[in-house]
Protein backbone atom coordinates (compact mmCIF):
# COMPACT_ATOMS: atom_id res chain seq x y z
CA UNK A 1 0.00 0.00 0.00
CA UNK A 2 1.07 3.58 -0.54
CA UNK A 3 1.53 4.72 3.07
CA UNK A 4 2.49 2.24 5.74
CA UNK A 5 3.57 1.96 9.34
CA UNK A 6 4.40 -0.93 11.65
CA UNK A 7 4.12 -0.85 15.40
CA UNK A 8 3.82 -3.09 18.40
CA UNK A 9 1.38 -2.69 21.28
CA UNK A 10 2.29 -5.05 24.09
CA UNK A 11 2.86 -8.47 22.52
CA UNK A 12 0.89 -7.73 19.34
CA UNK A 13 2.44 -6.38 16.12
CA UNK A 14 0.42 -4.47 13.54
CA UNK A 15 1.13 -3.46 9.95
CA UNK A 16 -1.05 -0.57 8.84
CA UNK A 17 -1.40 0.47 5.22
CA UNK A 18 -3.36 3.43 3.91
CA UNK A 19 -4.34 5.05 0.64
CA UNK A 20 -3.81 8.44 2.33
CA UNK A 21 -0.83 9.99 4.11
CA UNK A 22 -2.73 11.70 6.92
CA UNK A 23 -3.84 8.74 9.08
CA UNK A 24 -0.37 7.19 8.89
CA UNK A 25 1.27 10.51 9.84
CA UNK A 26 -1.05 10.75 12.87
CA UNK A 27 -0.28 7.19 13.90
CA UNK A 28 3.46 7.78 13.55
CA UNK A 29 3.22 10.85 15.77
CA UNK A 30 1.03 9.40 18.47
CA UNK A 31 2.75 5.99 18.52
CA UNK A 32 6.27 7.46 18.07
CA UNK A 33 7.65 5.78 21.23
CA UNK A 34 6.28 2.33 20.38
CA UNK A 35 8.62 -0.36 19.02
CA UNK A 36 8.32 -2.32 15.77
CA UNK A 37 6.69 -5.75 15.73
CA UNK A 38 8.94 -8.56 16.98
CA UNK A 39 11.26 -9.51 14.14
CA UNK A 40 9.39 -6.96 11.98
CA UNK A 41 6.71 -9.57 11.31
CA UNK A 42 3.31 -8.22 12.26
CA UNK A 43 0.59 -10.41 13.75
CA UNK A 44 -2.16 -8.48 11.99
CA UNK A 45 -2.69 -6.27 8.95
CA UNK A 46 -4.91 -3.21 8.84
CA UNK A 47 -5.87 -1.52 5.58
CA UNK A 48 -7.46 1.90 5.15
CA UNK A 49 -8.69 2.26 1.61
CA UNK A 50 -11.04 4.25 -0.59
CA UNK A 51 -14.48 2.79 -1.30
CA UNK A 52 -13.94 3.62 -4.98
CA UNK A 53 -10.68 4.73 -6.65
CA UNK A 54 -11.92 8.30 -7.17
CA UNK A 55 -12.96 8.52 -3.52
CA UNK A 56 -9.28 8.89 -2.63
CA UNK A 57 -9.64 12.48 -3.73
CA UNK A 58 -13.30 13.35 -4.06
CA UNK A 59 -15.08 13.39 -0.68
CA UNK A 60 -12.51 10.89 0.61
CA UNK A 61 -14.03 8.19 2.76
CA UNK A 62 -12.08 5.51 4.58
CA UNK A 63 -13.07 1.86 4.43
CA UNK A 64 -11.67 -0.43 7.11
CA UNK A 65 -10.01 -3.62 5.99
CA UNK A 66 -7.50 -6.15 7.17
CA UNK A 67 -7.06 -9.84 7.86
CA UNK A 68 -10.45 -9.89 9.56
CA UNK A 69 -13.42 -7.76 8.54
CA UNK A 70 -17.00 -7.15 9.49
CA UNK A 71 -19.09 -7.05 6.31
CA UNK A 72 -21.38 -4.34 7.68
CA UNK A 73 -18.58 -1.86 8.59
CA UNK A 74 -19.42 1.64 7.36
CA UNK A 75 -16.79 4.01 5.93
CA UNK A 76 -15.61 7.09 7.87
CA UNK A 77 -14.67 10.53 6.55
CA UNK A 78 -10.93 11.02 6.06
CA UNK A 79 -10.86 13.50 8.97
CA UNK A 80 -11.62 10.50 11.19
CA UNK A 81 -8.93 8.33 9.60
CA UNK A 82 -7.14 7.91 12.95
CA UNK A 83 -10.33 6.53 14.47
CA UNK A 84 -10.67 4.18 11.49
CA UNK A 85 -7.15 2.87 12.12
CA UNK A 86 -7.82 2.36 15.84
CA UNK A 87 -11.13 0.62 15.14
CA UNK A 88 -9.48 -1.62 12.57
CA UNK A 89 -6.70 -2.62 14.97
CA UNK A 90 -9.27 -3.43 17.66
CA UNK A 91 -11.25 -5.44 15.13
CA UNK A 92 -8.23 -7.60 14.21
CA UNK A 93 -7.79 -8.35 17.90
CA UNK A 94 -11.47 -8.99 18.59
CA UNK A 95 -11.89 -11.36 15.63
CA UNK A 96 -8.44 -12.79 15.12
CA UNK A 97 -6.64 -13.08 18.45
CA UNK A 98 -6.17 -16.70 19.55
CA UNK A 99 -3.09 -16.58 21.78
CA UNK A 100 -4.77 -14.72 24.63
CA UNK A 101 -8.29 -14.74 25.97
CA UNK A 102 -9.53 -11.19 25.36
CA UNK A 103 -11.74 -9.42 27.84
CA UNK A 104 -13.19 -6.09 26.90
CA UNK A 105 -11.77 -4.22 29.88
CA UNK A 106 -9.29 -1.61 31.02
CA UNK A 107 -6.35 -2.71 33.14
CA UNK A 108 -4.01 -0.87 35.52
CA UNK A 109 -1.18 -2.29 37.58
CA UNK A 110 0.41 -1.56 40.94
CA UNK A 111 3.11 -3.62 42.69
CA UNK A 112 3.03 -6.21 39.92
CA UNK A 113 -0.69 -6.89 40.38
CA UNK A 114 -3.43 -6.01 37.95
CA UNK A 115 -6.80 -4.37 38.48
CA UNK A 116 -9.25 -5.26 35.72
CA UNK A 117 -12.26 -3.01 35.07
CA UNK A 118 -14.94 -4.26 32.74
CA UNK A 119 -18.42 -3.07 31.86
CA UNK A 120 -20.58 -1.91 29.03
CA UNK A 121 -19.78 1.14 26.94
CA UNK A 122 -20.24 4.25 29.12
CA UNK A 123 -19.43 2.45 32.38
CA UNK A 124 -16.22 4.46 32.58
CA UNK A 125 -13.51 1.89 31.87
CA UNK A 126 -11.22 4.20 29.89
CA UNK A 127 -11.82 7.23 32.10
CA UNK A 128 -11.07 5.38 35.32
CA UNK A 129 -7.95 3.78 33.83
CA UNK A 130 -6.66 7.19 32.72
CA UNK A 131 -7.45 8.77 36.10
CA UNK A 132 -5.75 5.94 37.98
CA UNK A 133 -2.72 6.30 35.70
CA UNK A 134 -2.63 10.02 36.61
CA UNK A 135 -2.42 8.89 40.26
CA UNK A 136 0.58 6.66 39.76
CA UNK A 137 -0.86 3.33 38.59
CA UNK A 138 0.69 1.80 35.50
CA UNK A 139 -1.75 1.82 32.56
CA UNK A 140 -1.86 -1.61 30.91
CA UNK A 141 -4.70 -0.88 28.51
CA UNK A 142 -8.13 0.63 28.10
CA UNK A 143 -9.67 -1.79 25.60
CA UNK A 144 -8.60 -5.39 26.13
CA UNK A 145 -7.21 -7.43 28.99
CA UNK A 146 -5.04 -10.17 27.42
CA UNK A 147 -5.25 -13.27 29.60
CA UNK A 148 -2.52 -15.84 28.96
CA UNK A 149 -4.27 -19.23 29.21
CA UNK A 150 -1.03 -20.97 30.17
CA UNK A 151 0.15 -18.71 33.01
CA UNK A 152 -2.99 -16.80 33.98
CA UNK A 153 -0.99 -13.56 33.67
CA UNK A 154 -2.48 -10.42 32.13
CA UNK A 155 -0.46 -8.94 29.27
CA UNK A 156 -0.48 -5.21 28.65
CA UNK A 157 -2.07 -3.78 25.51
CA UNK A 158 -1.59 -0.05 26.04
CA UNK A 159 -3.04 1.35 22.83
CA UNK A 160 -4.11 4.99 22.69
CA UNK A 161 -6.75 5.62 25.36
CA UNK A 162 -10.00 6.45 23.63
CA UNK A 163 -11.83 9.18 25.56
CA UNK A 164 -15.39 9.98 24.62
CA UNK A 165 -17.58 13.06 25.09
CA UNK A 166 -17.51 14.41 28.68
CA UNK A 167 -14.59 12.17 29.66
CA UNK A 168 -12.35 14.23 27.36
CA UNK A 169 -12.62 17.27 29.64
CA UNK A 170 -12.42 15.32 32.88
CA UNK A 171 -9.19 13.61 31.85
CA UNK A 172 -7.53 16.59 30.13
CA UNK A 173 -8.17 18.67 33.27
CA UNK A 174 -6.58 15.97 35.42
CA UNK A 175 -3.61 15.48 33.07
CA UNK A 176 -2.45 18.92 31.92
CA UNK A 177 0.85 17.43 30.71
CA UNK A 178 -0.75 14.52 28.90
CA UNK A 179 -0.24 14.07 25.16
CA UNK A 180 -3.52 14.07 23.30
CA UNK A 181 -4.44 13.39 19.69
CA UNK A 182 -6.68 15.63 17.60
CA UNK A 183 -10.28 16.10 18.72
CA UNK A 184 -12.45 13.99 16.42
CA UNK A 185 -15.85 15.65 16.56
CA UNK A 186 -19.18 13.99 15.78
CA UNK A 187 -17.93 10.48 15.02
CA UNK A 188 -20.42 7.59 15.07
CA UNK A 189 -19.42 7.21 18.75
CA UNK A 190 -19.68 10.93 19.58
CA UNK A 191 -16.68 13.20 20.16
CA UNK A 192 -13.45 11.26 20.58
CA UNK A 193 -9.98 12.28 21.64
CA UNK A 194 -7.07 9.92 22.15
CA UNK A 195 -4.65 10.08 25.06
CA UNK A 196 -1.14 8.70 24.56
CA UNK A 197 -0.23 6.36 27.44
CA UNK A 198 2.57 7.82 29.56
CA UNK A 199 6.24 6.89 29.12
CA UNK A 200 6.09 4.38 31.95
CA UNK A 201 3.15 2.49 30.43
CA UNK A 202 5.02 2.17 27.13
CA UNK A 203 8.39 1.31 28.71
CA UNK A 204 6.85 -1.46 30.84
CA UNK A 205 4.45 -2.86 28.27
CA UNK A 206 6.31 -6.17 28.00
CA UNK A 207 5.81 -6.83 31.72
CA UNK A 208 2.69 -8.88 32.43
CA UNK A 209 0.95 -8.78 35.81
CA UNK A 210 -0.94 -11.23 37.98
CA UNK A 211 -4.64 -10.34 38.16
CA UNK A 212 -5.65 -9.27 41.70
CA UNK A 213 -9.07 -7.60 41.51
CA UNK A 214 -11.95 -7.50 39.06
CA UNK A 215 -14.22 -4.45 39.09
CA UNK A 216 -17.54 -3.80 37.39
CA UNK A 217 -17.80 0.00 37.51
CA UNK A 218 -21.15 1.66 36.94
CA UNK A 219 -21.23 5.42 36.34
CA UNK A 220 -24.12 7.69 37.35
CA UNK A 221 -25.29 6.23 40.65
CA UNK A 222 -24.82 7.00 44.35
CA UNK A 223 -21.60 5.46 45.72
CA UNK A 224 -22.02 1.78 46.54
CA UNK A 225 -19.89 -1.35 46.58
CA UNK A 226 -21.27 -4.86 46.34
CA UNK A 227 -19.93 -8.39 45.95
CA UNK A 228 -20.56 -10.17 42.69
CA UNK A 229 -21.19 -13.91 42.84
CA UNK A 230 -19.11 -16.35 40.81
CA UNK A 231 -22.02 -17.23 38.52
CA UNK A 232 -22.64 -13.61 37.60
CA UNK A 233 -18.92 -12.94 37.13
CA UNK A 234 -18.65 -15.92 34.80
CA UNK A 235 -21.59 -14.84 32.65
CA UNK A 236 -20.50 -11.20 32.50
CA UNK A 237 -16.95 -12.18 31.52
CA UNK A 238 -18.14 -14.51 28.76
CA UNK A 239 -20.20 -11.60 27.43
CA UNK A 240 -17.23 -9.23 27.74
CA UNK A 241 -14.91 -11.59 25.88
CA UNK A 242 -14.66 -11.33 22.11
CA UNK A 243 -12.95 -14.68 21.58
CA UNK A 244 -14.17 -16.87 24.44
CA UNK A 245 -16.07 -19.22 22.11
CA UNK A 246 -13.33 -19.31 19.48
CA UNK A 247 -10.71 -20.18 22.11
CA UNK A 248 -12.59 -23.35 23.02
CA UNK A 249 -11.46 -25.24 26.08
CA UNK A 250 -8.40 -22.99 26.61
CA UNK A 251 -10.75 -20.01 26.85
CA UNK A 252 -12.98 -21.77 29.34
CA UNK A 253 -10.01 -22.75 31.50
CA UNK A 254 -8.55 -19.23 31.49
CA UNK A 255 -11.88 -17.64 32.26
CA UNK A 256 -12.93 -19.96 35.07
CA UNK A 257 -9.50 -19.59 36.65
CA UNK A 258 -10.02 -15.83 36.73
CA UNK A 259 -13.48 -16.28 38.26
CA UNK A 260 -12.17 -18.64 40.94
CA UNK A 261 -8.95 -16.91 41.90
CA UNK A 262 -9.66 -13.20 42.17
CA UNK A 263 -12.31 -11.22 44.06
CA UNK A 264 -14.93 -9.36 42.02
CA UNK A 265 -16.79 -6.22 43.09
CA UNK A 266 -19.32 -3.91 41.48
CA UNK A 267 -18.92 -0.22 42.25
CA UNK A 268 -21.48 2.49 41.60
CA UNK A 269 -20.07 6.02 41.40
CA UNK A 270 -21.48 9.49 40.72
CA UNK A 271 -18.10 11.05 39.76
CA UNK A 272 -14.50 9.95 39.24
CA UNK A 273 -13.46 11.19 42.71
CA UNK A 274 -15.85 8.73 44.34
CA UNK A 275 -14.59 5.95 42.08
CA UNK A 276 -10.94 6.66 43.03
CA UNK A 277 -11.86 6.45 46.72
CA UNK A 278 -13.69 3.14 46.21
CA UNK A 279 -10.80 1.65 44.23
CA UNK A 280 -8.18 2.64 46.84
CA UNK A 281 -10.38 1.27 49.62
CA UNK A 282 -10.89 -2.07 47.87
CA UNK A 283 -7.23 -2.36 46.87
CA UNK A 284 -5.90 -1.78 50.41
CA UNK A 285 -8.42 -4.34 51.67
CA UNK A 286 -7.13 -7.12 49.43
Amino acid sequence: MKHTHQLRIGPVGFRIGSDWAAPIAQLKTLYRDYPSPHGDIADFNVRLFATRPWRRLVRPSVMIGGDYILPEAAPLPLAQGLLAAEMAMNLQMALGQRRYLLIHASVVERDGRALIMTGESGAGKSTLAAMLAARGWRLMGDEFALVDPTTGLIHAFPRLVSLKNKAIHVVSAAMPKGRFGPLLAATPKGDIQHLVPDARAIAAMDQPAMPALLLFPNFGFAPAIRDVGAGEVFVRLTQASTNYVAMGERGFTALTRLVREIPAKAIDYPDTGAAMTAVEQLWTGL
Partner: protein
Amino acid sequence: MDRVVKTDGWLLARALCDPASVATLDANGWTSLLTIARAEQLIGSLAHRLEGLPMPESAARILADARGSAAQGRVLALWEAEMARRALASLGCPVVLLKGTAFIAAGLAAGVGRSIGDLDILVPTDRLDAVERALIAANWEWVKPDPYDDAYYRRWMHELPPLIHRDRDRMIDVHHTILPLTARITPDAAALIADSVALENGLRILSHPDMLIHAAAHLFADGDLAGGMRNLWDVHRLVEEFGTEGVFDRAAHHGLSVAMHRAVRLAAALYADPDGVQLRLSRLDRLYLHRLTARDGWGRAVRPLLRQAFYMRSHLLRMPPLMLARHLWTKWRGGHHAI
Protein backbone atom coordinates in the same frame (compact mmCIF):
# COMPACT_ATOMS: atom_id res chain seq x y z
CA MET B 1 15.45 -23.61 -9.29
CA ASP B 2 16.21 -19.91 -9.24
CA ARG B 3 12.75 -18.99 -10.35
CA VAL B 4 11.86 -15.61 -8.85
CA VAL B 5 8.79 -15.97 -6.67
CA LYS B 6 6.53 -12.98 -7.00
CA THR B 7 4.60 -11.56 -4.09
CA ASP B 8 1.31 -13.17 -5.00
CA GLY B 9 -0.31 -16.56 -4.53
CA TRP B 10 2.84 -18.22 -5.89
CA LEU B 11 4.66 -17.25 -2.69
CA LEU B 12 2.17 -19.37 -0.74
CA ALA B 13 2.18 -22.17 -3.31
CA ARG B 14 5.96 -22.38 -3.12
CA ALA B 15 5.98 -22.52 0.68
CA LEU B 16 3.37 -25.32 0.70
CA CYS B 17 5.11 -27.24 -2.06
CA ASP B 18 8.67 -26.83 -0.77
CA PRO B 19 8.60 -25.91 2.96
CA ALA B 20 12.38 -25.56 3.15
CA SER B 21 12.14 -22.66 0.70
CA VAL B 22 10.95 -20.37 3.52
CA ALA B 23 14.54 -20.27 4.76
CA THR B 24 15.22 -17.52 2.24
CA LEU B 25 12.40 -15.24 3.35
CA ASP B 26 13.11 -11.90 5.00
CA ALA B 27 10.69 -10.19 7.42
CA ASN B 28 8.75 -8.66 4.55
CA GLY B 29 8.52 -12.00 2.77
CA TRP B 30 7.22 -13.67 5.92
CA THR B 31 4.63 -10.94 6.44
CA SER B 32 3.40 -11.34 2.87
CA LEU B 33 3.35 -15.14 3.09
CA LEU B 34 1.34 -15.17 6.32
CA THR B 35 -1.04 -12.51 5.02
CA ILE B 36 -1.70 -14.33 1.74
CA ALA B 37 -2.11 -17.66 3.54
CA ARG B 38 -4.70 -16.10 5.82
CA ALA B 39 -6.57 -14.51 2.92
CA GLU B 40 -6.66 -17.83 1.04
CA GLN B 41 -7.75 -19.66 4.22
CA LEU B 42 -4.67 -21.83 4.03
CA ILE B 43 -2.81 -20.58 7.11
CA GLY B 44 -3.70 -23.69 9.14
CA SER B 45 -2.48 -25.98 6.37
CA LEU B 46 0.68 -23.89 6.00
CA ALA B 47 1.24 -23.93 9.76
CA HIS B 48 1.25 -27.74 9.80
CA ARG B 49 3.38 -27.91 6.69
CA LEU B 50 6.09 -25.67 8.21
CA GLU B 51 5.97 -27.05 11.74
CA GLY B 52 9.41 -27.64 13.22
CA LEU B 53 11.34 -25.79 10.52
CA PRO B 54 13.75 -23.02 11.56
CA MET B 55 12.02 -19.65 11.24
CA PRO B 56 11.79 -16.28 13.02
CA GLU B 57 10.21 -16.57 16.45
CA SER B 58 7.35 -14.24 15.61
CA ALA B 59 6.40 -16.28 12.54
CA ALA B 60 6.56 -19.47 14.60
CA ARG B 61 4.21 -17.94 17.17
CA ILE B 62 1.69 -16.83 14.55
CA LEU B 63 1.72 -20.29 12.97
CA ALA B 64 1.34 -21.97 16.36
CA ASP B 65 -1.77 -19.83 16.90
CA ALA B 66 -3.02 -20.94 13.49
CA ARG B 67 -2.56 -24.61 14.42
CA GLY B 68 -4.49 -24.01 17.65
CA SER B 69 -7.23 -22.31 15.72
CA ALA B 70 -7.46 -25.15 13.20
CA ALA B 71 -7.59 -27.70 16.02
CA GLN B 72 -10.53 -25.88 17.56
CA GLY B 73 -12.16 -25.61 14.11
CA ARG B 74 -11.80 -29.37 13.77
CA VAL B 75 -13.59 -29.96 17.08
CA LEU B 76 -16.45 -27.69 16.02
CA ALA B 77 -16.77 -29.25 12.56
CA LEU B 78 -16.88 -32.79 13.93
CA TRP B 79 -19.43 -31.75 16.53
CA GLU B 80 -21.59 -30.16 13.85
CA ALA B 81 -21.45 -33.38 11.81
CA GLU B 82 -22.48 -35.32 14.92
CA MET B 83 -25.41 -32.95 15.48
CA ALA B 84 -26.58 -33.54 11.91
CA ARG B 85 -26.13 -37.29 12.35
CA ARG B 86 -28.36 -37.27 15.42
CA ALA B 87 -30.98 -35.10 13.73
CA LEU B 88 -31.14 -37.42 10.72
CA ALA B 89 -30.52 -40.79 12.36
CA SER B 90 -34.18 -41.79 12.51
CA LEU B 91 -34.64 -41.32 8.75
CA GLY B 92 -32.33 -44.25 8.01
CA CYS B 93 -31.08 -42.66 4.79
CA PRO B 94 -27.42 -42.37 3.83
CA VAL B 95 -25.82 -39.05 4.88
CA VAL B 96 -22.57 -38.36 3.05
CA LEU B 97 -20.15 -35.77 4.45
CA LEU B 98 -18.54 -33.59 1.80
CA LYS B 99 -15.41 -31.39 1.53
CA GLY B 100 -13.47 -30.37 4.66
CA THR B 101 -15.64 -32.14 7.21
CA ALA B 102 -15.26 -35.39 5.27
CA PHE B 103 -11.46 -34.98 5.17
CA ILE B 104 -11.14 -34.52 8.91
CA ALA B 105 -13.78 -37.13 9.81
CA ALA B 106 -11.85 -39.68 7.75
CA GLY B 107 -8.46 -38.49 9.04
CA LEU B 108 -7.14 -37.62 5.57
CA ALA B 109 -4.00 -35.58 4.93
CA ALA B 110 -6.15 -33.01 3.13
CA GLY B 111 -7.87 -32.31 6.46
CA VAL B 112 -4.70 -31.45 8.41
CA GLY B 113 -4.97 -27.80 9.45
CA ARG B 114 -7.80 -27.20 7.01
CA SER B 115 -10.22 -24.38 7.75
CA ILE B 116 -13.84 -25.45 7.70
CA GLY B 117 -16.83 -23.17 7.41
CA ASP B 118 -20.19 -24.76 6.70
CA LEU B 119 -21.18 -28.37 7.06
CA ASP B 120 -21.83 -29.87 3.61
CA ILE B 121 -23.76 -33.10 3.27
CA LEU B 122 -25.15 -35.13 0.38
CA VAL B 123 -28.40 -37.06 0.65
CA PRO B 124 -30.55 -38.94 -1.90
CA THR B 125 -32.85 -36.63 -3.89
CA ASP B 126 -35.96 -38.56 -2.95
CA ARG B 127 -35.22 -38.07 0.78
CA LEU B 128 -34.63 -34.33 0.50
CA ASP B 129 -38.02 -33.31 1.91
CA ALA B 130 -37.70 -35.63 4.89
CA VAL B 131 -34.16 -34.40 5.58
CA GLU B 132 -35.31 -30.80 5.45
CA ARG B 133 -38.18 -31.48 7.87
CA ALA B 134 -35.90 -33.33 10.28
CA LEU B 135 -33.35 -30.52 10.30
CA ILE B 136 -36.01 -27.88 10.90
CA ALA B 137 -37.41 -29.98 13.74
CA ALA B 138 -33.89 -29.97 15.22
CA ASN B 139 -33.73 -26.13 15.21
CA TRP B 140 -32.08 -25.35 11.89
CA GLU B 141 -33.66 -22.28 10.25
CA TRP B 142 -33.78 -20.63 6.81
CA VAL B 143 -31.09 -18.07 6.07
CA LYS B 144 -32.59 -16.59 2.92
CA PRO B 145 -36.13 -15.39 3.41
CA ASP B 146 -36.23 -13.95 -0.13
CA PRO B 147 -38.92 -15.88 -2.07
CA TYR B 148 -37.09 -15.62 -5.42
CA ASP B 149 -33.86 -16.98 -3.95
CA ASP B 150 -35.74 -19.71 -2.15
CA ALA B 151 -37.64 -20.78 -5.25
CA TYR B 152 -34.48 -20.55 -7.33
CA TYR B 153 -32.57 -22.83 -5.01
CA ARG B 154 -35.36 -25.38 -4.92
CA ARG B 155 -35.91 -25.52 -8.63
CA TRP B 156 -32.42 -25.18 -10.04
CA MET B 157 -29.71 -25.69 -7.45
CA HIS B 158 -27.87 -28.81 -6.35
CA GLU B 159 -28.58 -28.00 -2.73
CA LEU B 160 -31.34 -26.73 -0.47
CA PRO B 161 -31.27 -23.06 0.47
CA PRO B 162 -28.69 -22.81 3.29
CA LEU B 163 -29.95 -23.53 6.80
CA ILE B 164 -28.42 -22.11 9.95
CA HIS B 165 -28.68 -23.55 13.43
CA ARG B 166 -30.54 -21.31 15.85
CA ASP B 167 -28.22 -21.88 18.83
CA ARG B 168 -24.89 -22.86 17.34
CA ASP B 169 -25.01 -20.33 14.50
CA ARG B 170 -23.49 -22.82 12.04
CA MET B 171 -24.65 -23.35 8.47
CA ILE B 172 -25.52 -26.59 6.78
CA ASP B 173 -25.66 -27.05 3.01
CA VAL B 174 -27.77 -30.05 2.07
CA HIS B 175 -26.76 -31.28 -1.40
CA HIS B 176 -28.58 -33.81 -3.53
CA THR B 177 -25.99 -33.69 -6.30
CA ILE B 178 -22.70 -31.85 -6.95
CA LEU B 179 -23.56 -29.45 -9.78
CA PRO B 180 -26.53 -27.11 -10.28
CA LEU B 181 -29.35 -28.64 -12.30
CA THR B 182 -28.94 -25.80 -14.78
CA ALA B 183 -25.41 -26.82 -15.71
CA ARG B 184 -24.88 -28.71 -18.96
CA ILE B 185 -23.17 -31.53 -17.11
CA THR B 186 -25.25 -33.92 -15.00
CA PRO B 187 -23.12 -36.02 -12.66
CA ASP B 188 -24.49 -39.40 -11.55
CA ALA B 189 -25.70 -38.47 -8.06
CA ALA B 190 -27.09 -41.94 -7.34
CA ALA B 191 -23.66 -43.44 -8.03
CA LEU B 192 -22.00 -40.94 -5.68
CA ILE B 193 -24.18 -42.22 -2.87
CA ALA B 194 -24.10 -45.89 -3.91
CA ASP B 195 -20.29 -45.97 -3.88
CA SER B 196 -19.86 -43.87 -0.72
CA VAL B 197 -18.03 -45.40 2.23
CA ALA B 198 -19.37 -45.70 5.79
CA LEU B 199 -17.43 -44.26 8.73
CA GLU B 200 -17.58 -45.83 12.17
CA ASN B 201 -20.36 -43.55 13.37
CA GLY B 202 -22.60 -44.36 10.40
CA LEU B 203 -21.99 -41.13 8.50
CA ARG B 204 -20.49 -41.66 5.08
CA ILE B 205 -17.83 -40.12 2.85
CA LEU B 206 -17.50 -40.20 -0.93
CA SER B 207 -15.25 -42.82 -2.50
CA HIS B 208 -11.76 -41.45 -3.10
CA PRO B 209 -12.29 -40.93 -6.85
CA ASP B 210 -15.60 -39.16 -6.24
CA MET B 211 -14.01 -36.99 -3.56
CA LEU B 212 -11.50 -35.75 -6.11
CA ILE B 213 -14.18 -35.35 -8.75
CA HIS B 214 -16.31 -33.28 -6.41
CA ALA B 215 -13.40 -30.94 -5.69
CA ALA B 216 -12.80 -30.55 -9.42
CA ALA B 217 -16.47 -30.05 -10.22
CA HIS B 218 -16.80 -27.39 -7.56
CA LEU B 219 -13.80 -25.51 -8.87
CA PHE B 220 -14.03 -25.73 -12.64
CA ALA B 221 -17.60 -26.50 -13.57
CA ASP B 222 -19.38 -24.33 -11.02
CA GLY B 223 -17.50 -21.74 -8.99
CA ASP B 224 -15.73 -18.51 -9.98
CA LEU B 225 -12.44 -19.86 -8.55
CA ALA B 226 -12.84 -18.03 -5.25
CA GLY B 227 -10.91 -20.08 -2.70
CA GLY B 228 -9.30 -21.95 -5.56
CA MET B 229 -5.87 -22.22 -4.00
CA ARG B 230 -7.35 -24.09 -1.04
CA ASN B 231 -9.45 -26.25 -3.30
CA LEU B 232 -6.42 -27.27 -5.36
CA TRP B 233 -4.45 -27.92 -2.17
CA ASP B 234 -7.21 -30.41 -1.30
CA VAL B 235 -6.83 -31.99 -4.74
CA HIS B 236 -3.06 -32.13 -4.38
CA ARG B 237 -3.23 -33.79 -0.95
CA LEU B 238 -5.86 -36.29 -2.10
CA VAL B 239 -3.79 -37.25 -5.14
CA GLU B 240 -0.70 -37.62 -2.95
CA GLU B 241 -2.57 -39.90 -0.57
CA PHE B 242 -4.57 -42.04 -3.00
CA GLY B 243 -3.15 -41.49 -6.46
CA THR B 244 -5.38 -41.10 -9.49
CA GLU B 245 -6.20 -44.70 -10.27
CA GLY B 246 -9.76 -45.01 -11.52
CA VAL B 247 -10.30 -41.29 -11.12
CA PHE B 248 -10.37 -40.32 -14.79
CA ASP B 249 -12.66 -43.19 -15.84
CA ARG B 250 -15.01 -42.28 -13.05
CA ALA B 251 -14.84 -38.59 -14.02
CA ALA B 252 -15.77 -39.55 -17.58
CA HIS B 253 -18.80 -41.40 -16.22
CA HIS B 254 -19.91 -38.20 -14.45
CA GLY B 255 -19.17 -36.08 -17.54
CA LEU B 256 -16.41 -34.28 -15.67
CA SER B 257 -13.28 -35.39 -17.52
CA VAL B 258 -12.21 -31.92 -18.55
CA ALA B 259 -12.62 -30.50 -15.05
CA MET B 260 -10.82 -33.46 -13.46
CA HIS B 261 -7.85 -33.34 -15.82
CA ARG B 262 -7.56 -29.61 -15.32
CA ALA B 263 -7.75 -29.93 -11.52
CA VAL B 264 -4.96 -32.51 -11.42
CA ARG B 265 -2.82 -30.54 -13.87
CA LEU B 266 -3.21 -27.22 -12.06
CA ALA B 267 -2.78 -28.75 -8.58
CA ALA B 268 0.51 -30.20 -9.81
CA ALA B 269 1.50 -26.90 -11.37
CA LEU B 270 0.92 -25.07 -8.09
CA TYR B 271 2.05 -27.59 -5.52
CA ALA B 272 4.17 -30.33 -7.07
CA ASP B 273 6.00 -28.99 -10.05
CA PRO B 274 5.88 -25.18 -10.03
CA ASP B 275 8.29 -24.94 -12.93
CA GLY B 276 5.93 -26.95 -15.08
CA VAL B 277 8.73 -29.13 -16.42
CA GLN B 278 6.65 -32.30 -16.49
CA LEU B 279 3.39 -30.60 -17.30
CA ARG B 280 2.08 -29.47 -20.62
CA LEU B 281 0.16 -26.38 -19.62
CA SER B 282 -2.08 -24.73 -22.16
CA ARG B 283 -2.58 -21.00 -22.46
CA LEU B 284 -5.92 -21.38 -20.71
CA ASP B 285 -4.23 -23.31 -17.88
CA ARG B 286 -1.84 -20.41 -17.40
CA LEU B 287 -4.73 -17.99 -17.33
CA TYR B 288 -6.34 -20.11 -14.62
CA LEU B 289 -3.12 -20.05 -12.61
CA HIS B 290 -2.86 -16.30 -13.03
CA ARG B 291 -6.40 -15.97 -11.66
CA LEU B 292 -5.88 -18.46 -8.83
CA THR B 293 -2.83 -16.61 -7.53
CA ALA B 294 -4.38 -13.12 -7.82
CA ARG B 295 -3.61 -11.95 -4.28
CA ASP B 296 -1.05 -9.36 -3.19
CA GLY B 297 1.18 -9.21 -0.10
CA TRP B 298 -1.48 -7.19 1.74
CA GLY B 299 -4.03 -9.95 1.20
CA ARG B 300 -5.92 -7.92 -1.38
CA ALA B 301 -7.69 -9.45 -4.36
CA VAL B 302 -5.85 -8.20 -7.45
CA ARG B 303 -6.24 -8.60 -11.26
CA PRO B 304 -9.87 -7.37 -11.19
CA LEU B 305 -10.55 -7.81 -14.90
CA LEU B 306 -9.40 -11.40 -14.87
CA ARG B 307 -11.46 -12.06 -11.74
CA GLN B 308 -14.50 -10.51 -13.41
CA ALA B 309 -14.00 -12.62 -16.52
CA PHE B 310 -13.89 -15.84 -14.50
CA TYR B 311 -16.89 -14.69 -12.50
CA MET B 312 -18.94 -14.25 -15.68
CA ARG B 313 -17.67 -17.54 -16.99
CA SER B 314 -18.85 -19.29 -13.82
CA HIS B 315 -22.36 -17.99 -14.42
CA LEU B 316 -22.34 -19.09 -18.04
CA LEU B 317 -21.28 -22.56 -16.96
CA ARG B 318 -23.98 -22.62 -14.38
CA MET B 319 -26.92 -21.84 -16.66
CA PRO B 320 -27.88 -21.28 -20.30
CA PRO B 321 -27.46 -17.66 -21.55
CA LEU B 322 -31.15 -16.81 -21.80
CA MET B 323 -31.82 -18.10 -18.32
CA LEU B 324 -28.78 -16.22 -17.04
CA ALA B 325 -30.11 -12.99 -18.54
CA ARG B 326 -33.47 -13.50 -16.88
CA HIS B 327 -31.82 -14.41 -13.57
CA LEU B 328 -29.58 -11.33 -13.56
CA TRP B 329 -32.50 -9.12 -14.59
CA THR B 330 -34.60 -10.40 -11.70
CA LYS B 331 -31.73 -10.03 -9.23
CA TRP B 332 -31.01 -6.53 -10.50
CA ARG B 333 -34.63 -5.43 -10.13
CA GLY B 334 -34.80 -7.10 -6.76
CA GLY B 335 -38.14 -8.49 -7.92
CA HIS B 336 -39.78 -11.73 -6.98
CA HIS B 337 -41.39 -12.90 -10.18
CA ALA B 338 -41.68 -16.26 -11.79
CA ILE B 339 -38.48 -18.08 -12.56
